[in-house]
């Protein structure tokens, strides 16, 4: 990058605030062509906000953006796109009922009445081959897995030939192998002279994929440095401002008391094809069983049958010695199943309801919240204040609709609620996805405490580090089957990664 002195993009003195928080304070950022620039920071550090400003989704309260040295306003995503700025968002910006091609073409400039999908499809197909981004072109993206939807997002950028590409935690849902492939794509993008911004909280990716790193904390820049001049521990220190030790499972639990047992369990997905094929698992008291797998291999359906949201088409579920196959959601709750769903706003929360109400959307049926035929709102408010305090959930006002809270606090609300319900089995799905290091640690501690207290935990996660750190045993799902099960201490990321991608652990690919 020598001799390339003028930044492609220069953001100067950016300020942005939202009700109650200042997301960016006087932030400066220079992006150069041919450079991968990592933005590192906890959730809520202001990384996404900064990039949303660059992508035209937010307007800064103050500050200026220079593109090729020219002061430029980016009031809309369309303007950003015209300027060659594109973003792969953490929460995908896709129209569910559109196909991949339609989504990719959506919003493109072109003749108003003529939409040439055929040539677009051809172009997209060649891009997808070029970058190994395998995507079904003509089915609605709503039915695709998270991983594939992300590829559609990336293809959209590539199709638009943007010169500044922003990736917002792109590897959060990928296998290690897929993440490596993505790393290679990103490197080749930068080799072609594109400026790449890479938002992440994974240090390994920062060190492997990027040239420059900017660390943000509490909306402010902590440092901007070439990657080869910083160490991992320095980055961690800059990021969280204090030393942090990852919790690990002490291991060695063999209570022998079975809480959950699945026998040849089968079910269908929404499209009517088999999602689970003869799944057999057991979870013991005081044990964390990790379920590894690339998202879309039956994990979601596994969670759904365990909480009564999906019907079994075969097999049996035994909970605490009781056959609970075919139980309704309510019966399963009453039998002691707690659940932290993967998609917060879908299953976990009722967006327009208040924090207090969301804390009791399962517990309202309990005697303590009832007074005769009435709900005891005073008791509910009191109890939710207790829970909010106990878990230090940051809530400006308990009567605030929960959709106005930050993602991290929303997740804390769900977890706090589930832990307060009487339960034997806790099912958690990607519990720390998109959360910062500190919240992740808090949630990991909570899960280990669950284990310590003698509950059974089923941890479904696409984060291998998380699975290895927390689980006693790990079962790997691939194409609706359990393709391998091993003790967490006796395995390696490579072994799990191989199983996850269907390559088998060596001998037989089944």
């Amino acid at each position, binding site marked *: 990058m020598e001799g390339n002195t003028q930044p492609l993009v220069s953001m100067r003195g950016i300020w942005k605030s939202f*009700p109650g928080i200042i997301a960016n304070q006087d932030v400066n950022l220079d992006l150069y062509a041919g450079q991968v620039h990592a933005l590192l920071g906890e959730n809520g550090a202001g990384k996404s906000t900064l990039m949303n400003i660059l992508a035209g989704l937010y*307007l*800064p*309260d103050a500050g*200026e953006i220079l593109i090729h040295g020219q*002061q*430029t*306003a980016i*009031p809309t995503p369309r303007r950003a796109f015209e300027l060659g700025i594109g973003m792969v968002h953490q929460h995908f910006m896709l129209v569910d009922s559109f196909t991949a091609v339609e989504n990719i073409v959506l919003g493109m400039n072109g003749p108003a009445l003529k939409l040439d999908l055929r040539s677009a499809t051809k172009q997209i197909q060649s891009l997808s081959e070029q970058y190994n981004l395998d995507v079904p072109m003509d089915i609605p993206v709503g039915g695709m897995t998270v991983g594939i939807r992300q590829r559609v997002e990336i293809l959209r950028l590539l199709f638009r030939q943007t010169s500044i590409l922003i990736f917002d935690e792109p590897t959060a849902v990928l296998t290690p192998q897929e993440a490596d492939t993505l790393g290679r794509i990103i490197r080749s993008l930068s080799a072609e002279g594109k400026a790449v911004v890479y938002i992440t909280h994974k240090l390994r990716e920062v060190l492997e994929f990027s040239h420059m790193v900017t660390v943000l904390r509490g909306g402010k820049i902590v440092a901007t440095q070439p990657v080869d001049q910083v160490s991992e521990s320095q980055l961690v220190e800059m990021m969280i401002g204090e030393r942090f030790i990852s919790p690990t499972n002490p291991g060695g639990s063999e209570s022998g008391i079975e809480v959950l047992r699945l026998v040849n369990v089968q079910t269908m997905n929404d499209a009517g094809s088999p999602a689970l094929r003869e799944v057999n698992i057991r979870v013991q008291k005081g044990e964390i069983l990790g379920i590894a797998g690339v998202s879309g291999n039956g994990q979601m359906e596994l969670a759904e049958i365990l*909480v*009564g*949201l999906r019907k079994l088409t075969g097999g049996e579920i035994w909970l605490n010695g009781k056959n609970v196959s075919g139980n*309704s*959601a*309510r*019966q*399963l*709750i*009453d039998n002691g199943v707690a*659940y932290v*769903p993967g998609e917060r*706003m*879908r*299953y*976990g*929360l*009722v*967006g*327009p*309801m208040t924090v207090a*109400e969301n804390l009791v*959307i*399962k517990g*309202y*049926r309990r005697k303590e*919240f*009832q007074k005769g*035929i*009435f*709900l005891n709102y005073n008791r509910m408010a009191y109890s939710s204040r207790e829970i909010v305090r106990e878990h230090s959930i940051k809530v400006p006002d308990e*009567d*605030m*609709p929960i*959709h*106005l809270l930050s993602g991290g606090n929303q997740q804390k609300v769900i977890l706090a609620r589930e832990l307060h319900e009487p339960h034997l089995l806790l099912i958690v799905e990607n519990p720390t996805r998109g959360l910062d290091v500190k919240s992740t640690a808090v949630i990991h501690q909570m899960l280990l405490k669950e284990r310590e207290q003698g509950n059974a935990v089923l941890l479904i996660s696409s984060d291998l580090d998380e699975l290895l750190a927390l689980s006693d045993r790990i079962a790997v799902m691939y194409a609706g089957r359990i393709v391998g099960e091993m003790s967490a201490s006796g395995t390696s990321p490579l072994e799990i990664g191989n199983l996850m991608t269907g390559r088998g652990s060596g001998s037989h690919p089944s």
Partner: protein
Amino acid sequence: MEAAPILHKKTMTLKTLRFKVDPYSADRTTRLKISGLSAIVAILASSGLFLLVGANPIQAFSSMFTGAFGNWEYWSVGEFYQLSETLVKMIPVLLTTLAVLTAFRMRFWNIGADGQFAMGAVAATGIALFSKSWFPSLPDWFVLPLMFIAGMLAGALYASISAFLKLKFGVNEIISTLMLNYVAILLAEYLYFGPWQDPQGMGFPGTAQFELFARMPRLFGRVHPGLIFGLVVALLLWIWLDRTPQGFEVKMTGLNPQAARYAGVNLVRNTLLVMLVSGAIAGLAGMSEVSGLAYRLQQGVLAGYGNTAIIVAWLSRLRVGPAVIVSFLISALLVSGEQVQISLGLPAAIALVLQGLILFVFLIGDFFTRFRISRVQLTTKQEQM
């Protein structure tokens, strides 16, 4: 400071003004302020309308007020005719509003209050006209309770058709309830133009007048016990929807059915229940109109309160207490609009325009209690030599 420089520094400031809309929830005082502001805007806008058609706004407003509530001249001699007419109008408005409010709480878009109203009216009329000939030994006092039950049952069953179609086949309830309106209203018309037409009515489209035992007594003016039904239903609904666990489930289901399902709520049972209750209330409105006011099923009874009800339900944010108050105010507006026609000789359409205008202003005001609009100013300085 000597000669004016030929080359001077020009600073151009480009201002871009934009508006951004963020969801928020207004607190009580803000909401009151916005309501007050809406009222002022509504008054100003209607004044403009009056001026446009050559009427004196002050005169017009005072005649509207008198039309809906009366004035001192009337009150001092104990005459509350106008107020009682407003209450008469309020009965069907309130009951249909409560009906759609119940369904809307669950985000079940019951657009079919008119149809359920019509079925309630038809069923009650059927009992009023024929129960005695079917069962000659039926005591007189028993007819009204039968009509009451039949009206509610007919509305409930009619509404349950849409609920069933939605639950079983995923049929959109907006379409099904709307279409069933036409079916019910045409059925009623067929009956009072055809087999149920009053033989002594000389071709008048309507049934025979009900016997005395099938008429509800008047409370005062033309106000009938339908008003009491409305208030009792409002009280019961408030308890049910806002104070009981089941009401909590209904609210939860409306706002996020997925989360409700996961929390163990029985969606099928609740949807059916809510639609039965919603339809029953609309049916009760129909029953009380025929047995309390018209004493027969005739043209004009099915006046189409369903649309008004939807507006009232939204303006009161699906809350029961405000729904009672807003129903009263809307009814006053409906009655006073008629008065403007009579006393100022303005065209009938003016009353409707006026109503539309006022509702529109309040709906806009309501928007500002849900969303905050702020002005964002982007300043871009361009410096040139």
